[in-house]
């Protein structure tokens, strides 16, 4: 696909943001080019400036940002155009889709009316033609029943469908370049695959160039002709995709490539006792209902799920959003009212009330996905980590608690001297370590890890996975590892439960599930996530049976 003249050339682009801490340079002299019809990937971890490079090209920087250098599109420097001239190119010749399909559409207008806007604006069509065109586009991005969907509002659509609508809007005027900023990151794996396939097909059909901004090397490998690797605002390495993956030259690229989680977890020996067991666990939520409005709707979030977690075992619970995996984890920890029986060791805790649970809580800890929201911003790290001790070991002296905090931080690989700082001073990975230290300080037996690595960059993910593994073998911990990220689950868990719509679809030893999935749904899930090399240019080949 590569070839032809560059239609977009970024030259010595610098992006600066005025912040309270002074001027921050997010992009430091980037050069890159996009040729007609090719797919270019810009890869990097968070903060690498990959998004800001393209935001600057589109003049979409936040109001405290400014760009210098040049972004030449067919001989015109986009940075120097007036707003009016720029608006003739944006959405028409160059268009963009974003990471957040849930919020990127205006919630107050029907998708049809939003789709007609760029068509009418750039092509000066009448309402009737624009409407026909909008319906054609909805059909093009395979929204089922486009006539009817035309009138739908964004909230009535799933994330995947909204992203399809975004793509339709972006392609409404046959652009030369489509900039896709992490377009699938917020979507479930099976939906991810559908969106990527769609993009590849549309590219073949319409011939636009695609600039793919992503942190996901799997997508790059499937999708891109050429790659730019960015770090800290600079391009570290560029080249053909094959060559970058085969022989990366820069050490950072090598590190990125090596950051895919690896290794296996052996199941615990047979004699190890069951620590936490749930039988026919059921969680229902009632929606609506009340005075004068009739009976509530019952949503069965977890539907009769049973599992037994043995000492030093890691059970991975996988499934897409809404499958009930997090709810199951919380129900087992008795953080949600549930039906069914839950044993902690030999003790039936399913009827235990708040008071009765309190002394047991130290055995059952939880680490959340969001390392930003789950640490109180007004407490020091030391206070956060030792808060549980105040409840479970109230007799400890202040000095003793402080010593324990230092120990716990050291154990998760943080400098104990940091315990007097506040969470906002730490990176995402460090915060997740703090959250883990908070759980570990109580010496629990079971830790429920709810997407603990999903908000982190791959290289950080890998470190957290290592840390969790080490802690597990050092303290004979049992993990319930909830994740939608199959690569990480494979590295962490020895047993897997696949959930969908509150039910268990399939369960078994990790290798069996990954290599010989029996259920159709599991197979789709695996195909979408694991077999990176197998689909390229939109051809999602059937997964061959592996030995």
């Amino acid at each position, binding site marked *: 696909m590569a070839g032809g003249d560059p239609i977009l050339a970024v030259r010595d682009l610098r992006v600066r943001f005025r912040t309270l801490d002074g001027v921050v340079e997010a992009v430091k002299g980037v050069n890159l080019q996009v040729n007609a019809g090719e797919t270019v990937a810009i890869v990097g971890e968070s903060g690498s400036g990959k998004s800001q490079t393209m935001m600057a090209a*589109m*003049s*979409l920087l936040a*109001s405290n940002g400014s760009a210098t250098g040049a972004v030449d599109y067919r001989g015109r420097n986009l940075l120097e155009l007036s*707003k009016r001239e*720029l*608006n*003739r*190119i*944006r*959405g*028409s010749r160059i*268009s*963009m889709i*974003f990471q*957040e399909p849930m*919020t*990127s*559409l*205006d*919630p*107050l*207008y*029907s998708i049809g009316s939003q789709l007609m*806007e*760029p068509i009418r*604006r*750039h092509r000066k069509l009448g309402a009737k033609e624009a409407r026909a065109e909008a319906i054609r586009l909805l059909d093009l991005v395979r929204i089922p029943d486009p006539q009817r969907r035309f009138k739908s*509002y964004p*909230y009535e659509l799933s994330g995947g469908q909204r992203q399809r609508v*975004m793509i339709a*809007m*972006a392609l409404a005027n046959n652009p030369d370049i489509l900039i896709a900023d992490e377009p699938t990151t917020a979507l479930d794996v099976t939906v991810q695959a559908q969106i990527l396939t769609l993009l590849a097909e549309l590219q073949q059909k319409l011939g636009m160039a695609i600039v793919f901004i992503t942190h996901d090397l799997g997508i790059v490998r499937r999708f891109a002709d050429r790659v730019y690797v960015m770090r800290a605002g600079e391009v570290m390495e560029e080249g053909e995709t094959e060559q970058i993956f085969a022989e990366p030259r820069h050490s950072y690229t090598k590190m990125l490539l090596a950051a895919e989680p690896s290794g296996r977890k052996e199941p615990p020996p047979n004699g190890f006792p069951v620590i936490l067991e749930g039988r026919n666990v059921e969680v229902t939520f009632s929606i609506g209902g009340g*005075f*004068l*409005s009739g009976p509530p709707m019952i949503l069965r979030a977890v539907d009769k799920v049973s599992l037994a977690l043995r000492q030093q075992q890691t059970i991975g619970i996988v499934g897409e959003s809404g499958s009930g995996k997090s709810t199951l984890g919380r129900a087992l920890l008795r953080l949600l009212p549930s039906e069914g029986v839950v044993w902690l060791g030999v003790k039936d805790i399913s009827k235990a009330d708040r008071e009765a649970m309190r002394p047991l809580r130290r055995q059952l800890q939880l680490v959340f996905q969001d390392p930003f929201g789950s640490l109180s911003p007004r407490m020091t790290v030391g206070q956060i980590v030792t808060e549980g001790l105040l409840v479970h070991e109230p007799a400890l002296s202040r000095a003793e608690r402080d010593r324990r905090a230092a120990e716990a931080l050291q154990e998760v690989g943080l400098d104990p001297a940091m315990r007097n700082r506040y969470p906002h001073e730490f990176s995402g990975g460090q915060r997740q370590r703090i959250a883990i230290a908070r759980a570990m300080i109580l010496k629990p037996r079971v830790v429920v890890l709810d997407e603990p690595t999903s908000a982190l960059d791959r290289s950080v993910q890998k470190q957290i996975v290592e840390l969790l593994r080490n802690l597990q073998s050092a303290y004979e911990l049992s993990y319930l590892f909830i994740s939608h990220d199959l690569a990480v689950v494979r590295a962490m868990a020895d047993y897997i439960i696949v959930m969908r719509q509150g039910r268990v679809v399939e369960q078994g030893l990790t290798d069996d599930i990954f290599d010989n999935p029996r259920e159709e749904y599991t197979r789709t899930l695996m195909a979408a996530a694991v077999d990176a090399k197998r689909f390229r240019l939109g051809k999602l080949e059937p997964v061959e049976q592996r030995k």
Partner: protein
Amino acid sequence: MLIFVVRRLLTAIPTLFVIITLSFFLIRVAPGGPFNQERGLSPEVKANLERAYGLDDPLWEQYLRYLGNLLKGDFGPSYNLPDFTVRELFEKGLPVSIQIGTSALILALIVGGTLGVIAALNQNRTADYAVIATAAAGSTIPTFVIAPIIQLVFGLTWTLLPIGGWGGGAFVNKIGPVITLSLPQIAIVARLMRGSMIESLRSHHIRTARALGLSEWSVVVRHALRGALLPIISYAGPAAAALLTGSIVVETIFAIPGVGRYFVDAALNRDYTLVMGTVVVIAIFTILFNLAVDILYAVVDPRVRYD
């Protein structure tokens, strides 16, 4: 939607009932009564008066009688303005207060809304600071200061406006009171609008609209403003209920025959029926305007559905 409105109006009945009951007994708990005045009536006269108005009956009997009369639309006689029934007082005064209040509210929404949008579009620039400063001043200077200043400047010095009086509802007589009443509201609306507009402009779908090359008008008005209106609507409901039932300060200073002063006067004089009348009117206005807010919400935001 119709079902929702009917349901809401039905639930308003028990609400009103509770409000009426509470205020009926609360005002009677307050020491004194409508005929305890400074000059003092002879005990016989007072007893006669109380008998005439049925105030010597047992309390529950008075309560039931009041409820029964209320159902017939009879709010009872005013004890302190003996020539009028409460209903007559409201029939005369309420239209005046509603005119002034509505004009002030509309003025506040238009002027305050525009200022807020201008400030948001120029965030942290001169225009923004000017609006913020004016708004701060507007909400800190009390109406009993603004009103005399308007009277002094426009009424006495320049003689452009009458100093006070209703003038049979002449336009010039309304200008002073409307401006006085709306200034603090303009300040509040401007600040609210600025905040919600800034947030709206930062949202992802605005970025999408810009990336699609839509015109600035479309981005700002069609996409940003509509969403930013929701907090304004929430505020405007209760504010309307308060403004339309009159303001004692404005009505007193400008000598306007509205209903704003009744509440305070009636409460001070233990004019039981007039207090109750005012409570019922304010409660009904509050309920209606909150309903209007909910309906407007559904009009602006398709995600809001009542069924």
